[in-house]
């Protein structure tokens, strides 16, 4: 690999995640360059043909729309924008009165955004649909192909096949890159998790055992050394105890029940285990975004406690877990059709208290209620902007 990145090297990382990657300078430059080139080539062709006033107005669209699309990323990602751009450029071709119009290039350029952002199957439909649309346009709007000479029929074939080829190849590339990037991030996540596990294991298995040994050795001196040294022994054992407590805290943070999975994935497998025992149907809808480890761990324990309660104490036959994102929060709701919370909590039922404590720790809001239809509804609102909560 050379030091100067080639086009091929630039592309992958850029288009890999179109949702945020199209903010990236290099991809945007390519996109704008393509559109402007299409506009300018069209402009040159029109100018050479005699420069009618209407055509220059239409060409202005190429410049302005490119500037707007580059300046407004929000607009750029909306399917409505793609559709509008597509329809406008296609109608330019129609208005120009000839399917061989230079605006064809601009219309081709309008396919780039949806082709890279849509899932592969939809992109293929888009490509095929575009080819058919252009064929229809050539028949309705332009000179009828049947009356044309051979060379024009060939040109028509190229015009019709080009959008399909363009869209499909762009979509294929984008899909491949998306997959590559997803695999890479999954691999990275796994590597991080296994590293955390290794550290946790070493802390527990080695350092902590040594600490216990040292503590036992030091405390065995109690009552066996002269009075003034008693104080030293007891001071040393207190320090060792504090070190062990510190280590427990670090261990708890390093050991995450998620094991590198997303919250919904981890809960799905927990639900599968629980459901197999209790013969209760557990449905999970939606996805959770990636959470900081500590937040994810607490959220998982809250939700799995709620699941356990529904199965064990409420005798529910159906439990529904929903994940949704709203106002910068991850919203998790667990609804069961069991017999609902008892009006008086049994003594020692500290499960709910523990759930509330966990929610507090990660700055989340927990509400436990009885929906009108019976059962129990537990809602957890986890803010997504914070950086990890306080342990």
């Amino acid at each position, binding site marked *: 690999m050379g030091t100067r990145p080639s086009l091929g090297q630039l592309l992958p990382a850029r288009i890999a995640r179109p949702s945020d990657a199209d903010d990236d300078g290099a991809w945007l430059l390519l996109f704008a360059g393509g559109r402007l080139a299409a506009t300018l080539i069209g402009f040159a062709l029109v100018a050479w043909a005699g420069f009618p006033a209407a055509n220059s107005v239409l060409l202005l669209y190429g410049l302005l729309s490119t500037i707007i699309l580059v300046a407004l990323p929000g607009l750029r990602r909306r399917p409505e924008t793609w559709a509008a751009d597509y329809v406008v450029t296609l109608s330019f071709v129609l208005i120009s009165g000839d399917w061989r119009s230079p605006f064809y290039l601009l219309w081709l350029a309008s396919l780039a955004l949806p082709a890279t952002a849509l899932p592969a199957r939809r992109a293929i439909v888009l490509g095929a649909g575009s080819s058919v649309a252009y064929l229809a346009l050539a028949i309705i709007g332009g000179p009828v192909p049947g009356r044309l000479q051979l060379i024009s029929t060939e040109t028509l074939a190229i015009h019709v096949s080009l959008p399909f080829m363009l869209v499909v190849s762009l979509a294929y590339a984008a899909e491949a890159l998306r997959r590559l990037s997803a695999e890479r991030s999954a691999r990275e996540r796994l590597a991080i998790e296994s590293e955390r596990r290794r550290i946790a294991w070493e802390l*527990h*298995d*080695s350092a*902590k*055992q*040594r600490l*216990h*040994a*040292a*503590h*036992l*050795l030091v*405390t*065995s001196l*109690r*009552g*066996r050394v002269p009075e003034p040294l008693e104080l030293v022994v007891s001071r040393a*054992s207190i320090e060792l*105890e504090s070190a*062990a407590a510190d280590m427990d805290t670090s*261990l*708890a943070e390093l*050991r995450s*029940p998620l094991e590198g999975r997303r919250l919904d994935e981890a809960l799905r497998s927990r639900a599968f285990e629980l459901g197999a025992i209790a013969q209760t149907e557990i449905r999970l809808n939606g996805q959770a975004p990636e959470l900081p480890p500590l937040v994810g761990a607490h959220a998982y324990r809250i939700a799995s406690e709620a699941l*356990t309660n529904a199965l*064990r104490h409420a005798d529910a036959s159906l439990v529904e877990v929903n994940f949704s994102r709203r106002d910068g929060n991850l919203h998790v709701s667990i609804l069961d059709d069991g017999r609902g919370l008892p009006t008086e909590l*049994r*003594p*020692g039922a500290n499960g709910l208290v523990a759930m509330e404590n966990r929610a507090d720790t990660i700055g989340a809001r927990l509400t436990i209620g009885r929906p009108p239809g019976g059962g129990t509804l537990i809602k957890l609102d986890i803010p997504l902007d914070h950086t990890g909560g306080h342990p």
Partner: protein
Amino acid sequence: MIRVIVVDDHPALRAGLHTVLDSEPGIAYAGESNGSEESLWPLLHRVEPDIALLDYHLPKGDGLQLCYRIKQQVPAPGVIIFSAYASPELLLPARLAKADGVLNKGVAARELFETIRGVAAGEGLLAPPSAALLHEAHAHIAQEDRALVGMLLDGAGEAEAARTLGTTVSDVRHSVQRILSTLRQSAPVAG
């Protein structure tokens, strides 16, 4: 003289315990094992210790299962589960596994000596599990096992339990091992 063996996978802890136990009059360090089958059983048969200090979290196995099997030996030593996280949830499975005591690894040497002396003197140092703990464990134990668990926790012998349930002692033992492994899964991750 109370003869104690240490079953723990970590050499530093074994070495520490060696020094500490030998320093106490009336207690002798009689040998050690890393918890593997090849080292533990020959040691037990050779030494016939009074007390086994058994790590709960062994890499090659489950301390409670091991405890249960050690207690089936004749004569059986007293077994103290020596755990880095001796949480109250451990009490019930420890009783099922016939452990004589549960001790946190973070205790001071004095407490360790007292527990060893207590168990050697035949005192039952394992408090009966509280009602809340029983309730919690109830959920983890399958319906068909509850009668057996109840009887064993009440102090019934395996033979007695087998007679009442109309099965054999070896069936009862298999059930207990199965229950111990399910209870272990529901225990906190950290060992």
